């Protein structure tokens, strides 16, 4: 019997339902970016180190390059596109802007999702906890100084 190489999956992304047939080997990040055209989540590596692709899957922070799309079948996915409501930045997004926590902005969607996961678990993290919370996200522009400040300010 041939192995199943394609499968139809159903996901909820930022409150919207999608049904798509995908290659079994399709990475979740490529599914989100290329198939659903939600290009806010980025790709910065091939090894699961950079966190640019971070999203929440059923509330859990996940590097979406480390997961197959078919593994997300039936899941509720949150991406950076779902943070702002009606064009209004949420507190974390606003804080990133206020504190100049982004330069090129390439790591930013992943950072925001990691920070979102952190703040849901811990409403008032210490600096050390913030750094731990974004330890899986690489930023090559900011040296993290302002990112940590932005997250701290958003938590206050």
């Amino acid at each position: 019997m041939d192995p199943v190489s394609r499968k139809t999956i159903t996901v909820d992304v930022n409150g919207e339902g999608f049904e798509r047939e995908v290659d079994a080997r399709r990475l979740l990040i490529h599914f989100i970016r290329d198939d659903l055209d939600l290009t806010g989540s980025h790709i910065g590596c091939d090894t699961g180190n950079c966190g640019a692709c971070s999203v929440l899957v059923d509330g859990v922070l996940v590097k979406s390059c480390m997961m197959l799309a078919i593994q997300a079948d039936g899941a509720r996915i949150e991406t950076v596109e779902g943070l702002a409501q009606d064009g209004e930045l949420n507190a974390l997004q606003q804080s990133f802007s206020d504190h100049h926590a982004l330069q090129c902005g390439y790591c930013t969607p992943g950072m925001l999702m990691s920070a979102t996961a952190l703040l849901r678990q811990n409403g008032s993290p210490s600096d050390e906890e913030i750094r731990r919370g974004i330890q899986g996200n690489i930023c090559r522009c900011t040296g993290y100084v302002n990112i940590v400040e932005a997250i701290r300010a958003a938590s206050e």
Partner: protein
Amino acid sequence: MTETIVTPERPLVVEEGDVKPGFIGQSVPRKEDKRLVQGEGVFFDDMKRHEMGFVHFVRSPYAHARIGSVDVSKALELDGVYGTLTGDEVAILTDPFFELSTPPGAHIKDYALAVGRVRHVGDPVAAVVARTRELARDAAELVEVDYEPLPLVLDGEEALKDKVVLHEDAGSNTVWSGVFDWGDFDAALAEADHVVRIDRLHFDRFSSTPLECAGCLVEYNRGTGQWTIHGNHQMPGVGAIWMAPALRVGIDKLRFVSQDIGGGFGNKITLHPQFTVCCLLARKLNRPVQWTEWRTDQHTANTHGNERTFLDVTVPVKADGTMLGFSVRAIDDCGAFPRYEPLGCIIWAQVTPGCYRWRSMRVDFTQVCTNKSPVAPNRGYSRMQHLWLTERIVDIVAGELGLDPIEVRKRNYVKHEEFPYETPNGCIYDSGDYARCLDIALELIGYDSLEERRRDAEARGKLFGIGIGSTLDSGTNNFGQSMILNPELQFSGNNEVATVKLDIFGEVVVTLGTVPQGQGHETTTAQVVAEILGCTPDDVNVRAGHDSYWNSTAGFSGTYASQFAVTGLGAVKGATEKLAGEMKQLAAAVFGCSPDDIELAESHARIKGNPEAALPFMALGAILNANNAGLPPELDITLNVRHVYRPPFEKPDLERKYGNLTLTYATQIHACALEVDPDTGVYEIVDYAAVDDCGKRIHPQIVEGQVHGATAQALGAATHEIFTYDEEGNLLTPNFYDYHVPHALDMPPMKNGYIESESPFTALGAKGMGEGGGAGIHAVCAALQNALGRRGEGPIVWRSCNPYQSVWELMQNPGETRKLVSVESR
């Protein structure tokens, strides 16, 4: 001079001087942020085209091999594969890219794909295009390449012997060599009380590794023969100069477009080979093609920073610690292809004496090819390596002669009252106060209590060290320096363009020639425009990104070499002033008064002293663009103006290798305190201060952000980031798993300070400042040196990258590296 100190505990306090009203100098909200924090930026990889194909490169597994045959037939059989391109086709369809160097480097033949021979692991041999990324990758594995491995050479000094030659056409691995001799080094030697000799220092390979890899989406228009390249080339003007002749087309056939770019740092300046492949494929297959570099490919085969070995460093020193200069033999390893690199043979000369008053320098410089990844400008390009040398000299000399590194620096720094200061090779340091920056750094780091902290660390069994790193970020370069390299090159001066128009509904629209990658150009541009036109930054619409089909590009357009605040904003200022003049003329024609009677304020053109007589910008835009009957025929305005900023440069004196090579010199003085575990070599930075002086700060928050980021890159390069190879030429750190860049927990607490020594040479008093982070490498090396040994004992920190393991090794056998240094006292 406004002087301000910022620390994390004490945000932005202006201590003296007035804050000028207006937008320049204010940290206004960044215009770019709103889209970027919502994931609504547009990076090249976000774009899609109907029926586009994905490109995957077939890359060499050998560091050096002859290519027997390349067979793509199996790949082409795979369903969903659209086509391929091989080196043989490239050799027919294109000419080699032009070489910057004089011979031997001039004879190197560099094509977009390997032709006949591969010269480093990852050298692209063929390219495959398929319906999906995954298929393209599968198909690439089906391409069969016959390789005949050749002996290889990985070490720069070894390569100079030419036992293995990479480029047969050049006949030698040497790309370029030259001797630079300024002042009178022999007289300096004769005058010295001590001569300190350092046999060897080595600046390691690393790269800033932008988080977004390289890539492009290329469309070919068969009807016009024109390519549109949506890609993240950060210097498309130069990319086009390389690509158009190779593709045998006029330069206007290449349209470069980018909106958002995920960091560049120089690593995206030499993308012309890959982009040329994509152009050929788009034309051959008559469909849009998309290439996204894999991280592993970026590390193995895109660009690294220059690796440089310094030999026979000789330093004449007076008894009081005054240094007179130095001589050195430098070997610069540019990897398999020089591309932009010959310029690195000259660019260090912008900062020949570093921050110091040294008057006699002799530098014997050679650039050489090896079987490693090509190198390219990397943040701090070529100056960082050289400044690291000057800082190592200062600390090693101080250590050997028992002098205080702080006092020696102050004694040898160019003094505040000496600016503008002419270096022995004719560069003009515009302004600065190095000693004061050092004092601020020392204050921030709590220098007074260091002995106490040393004792405390020692009580805990740790070795304590403090080190200083001083650098100059030379910005706005004079491309005339390329003629020192090769007098045949027809490049000199510099330029940048902006256009500013008032549109029909009164909207102010600006286009730039620059190619931003996170530096906030939209924001700082809006600040300058708003200040001149009397509106707010919100009223100014700066088009995002770059498009070479806008009328706002010139030969040197791009974002590189620390210059936007000077060239980019110089162009913006010039264009906006022209527009303001035209708006006043128009208002004067309407009101029947003289343009001198008109002022621009609150988004209106109004008669001075009579605010009732005011035309809103919207009226001005509408009158000229759509309601112009009855305007006086002699009113010669367009409300759509272009300005090319051209810095005041002369061609250098090629004989003496002498002349002003850069317009501005920003200063960075960093101080680092660290503790080393003597049993393991593990060290921790316990205190860190970075002081920056980039003249007038247009947007302080953006400046601080650049300082933070550059410092983080330097600390990464000093401690972990290194590209090392095994003896087969395989890169051992080909991804972020093995190549450890700083994560949030790796960063020490950082204190920042600044002064503003305005540049007398620039329109806004500002200086470029994005590349100054190298000071972090120097400071960490100095601090390690300080921690590991006192006078005449302890190892010599002789490499730029010192991972824990290396520090441990240094401590195991201090005699090994001590042999590198000798002192002759008279």
